[in-house]
């Protein structure tokens, strides 16, 4: 129990965390294993909140799409060393924030440093394409791509870019020689 905080520190941490969540308008924050059950629980919770806020149907659908693909990116590519993303144990951090104008969905997970160049190349390629280009890439990947053993179709990032109509915002932070932390943020406008 050496790592656990003392009661006072713990209290400060909780309050500090609360203030930061409020300040950044974060509705949902999670760190841990991303499973199918978690995916279902988070999407259902967010759907309920969007209904309460009267977000248009089209916005709700986009948020749902992006959440599922982001969460499955982490869960499906776990322990799959042959794939581009290989997050440790299918764990990651997941955040949903919302202000008057947009929803932001952010994921963070550990990837192998050696897979970073391919991942960057893929994301850059997606960000360089326009609507028509993304559509063609999606069709090509659906026809030619193969499902990974965990059911990843290599379509998730393309779908996120198409559904949001925005560029993917991402970064890689070095953890150590062989691991990096991959952060991806998708933005969905609340107007329409």
């Amino acid at each position: 129990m050496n790592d656990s905080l003392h009661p006072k520190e713990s209290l400060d941490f909780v309050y500090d965390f609360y203030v930061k969540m409020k300040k950044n308008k974060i509705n949902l924050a999670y760190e841990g294993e991303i499973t199918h059950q978690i995916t279902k629980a988070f999407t259902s919770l967010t759907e309920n909140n969007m209904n309460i806020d009267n977000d248009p149907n089209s916005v709700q659908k986009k948020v749902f799409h992006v959440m599922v693909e982001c969460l499955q990116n982490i869960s499906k590519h776990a322990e799959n060393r042959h794939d581009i993303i290989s997050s440790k144990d299918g764990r990651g951090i997941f955040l949903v924030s919302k202000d008057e104008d947009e929803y932001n969905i952010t994921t963070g997970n550990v990837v192998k440093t050696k897979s970073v160049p391919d991942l960057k190349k893929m994301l850059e390629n997606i960000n360089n394409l326009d609507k028509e280009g993304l559509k063609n890439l999606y069709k090509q990947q659906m026809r030619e791509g193969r499902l990974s053993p965990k059911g990843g179709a290599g379509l998730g990032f393309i779908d996120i870019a198409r559904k949001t109509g925005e560029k993917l915002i991402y970064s890689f932070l070095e953890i150590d020689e062989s691991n990096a932390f991959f952060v991806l943020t998708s933005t969905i406008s609340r107007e329409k």
Partner: protein
Amino acid sequence: MKVIKIHGTDDTPQVILDATPETPHLEISGRSLPEDVVTFYAPIIEWLEEYAGAPLGKTVFNFKLEYFNTASSKLLLDILLKLEDIHEDGHEVLVKWHYPDDDEDMEEAGQEYADIVEVPFEQVSYSID
């Protein structure tokens, strides 16, 4: 042929594969984001493979999905490719792609499938409420 009926859940679609000659009904509807897409769709693909051996005079296959994830999109293409095979063998096939009239993304998804597979394809809009 045996009839497949799978009840829909919040993450798997309702599936009806019934090739009774007088009252055929082939339909996938609802939401599709199964935990394991390959396992979920395997019996459907197998059923179609068997059906392709002796299809009805006219095969009408209905897709009426509210939502599907990218992993499912690949399996939906596999189903359409099976239907394409039946069509290529000289049988009459019609794919009916139903989409909510306010859902452009679902309409576009249908158009994209229609572009990929060589099979008669009809878009049908419906209104929710």
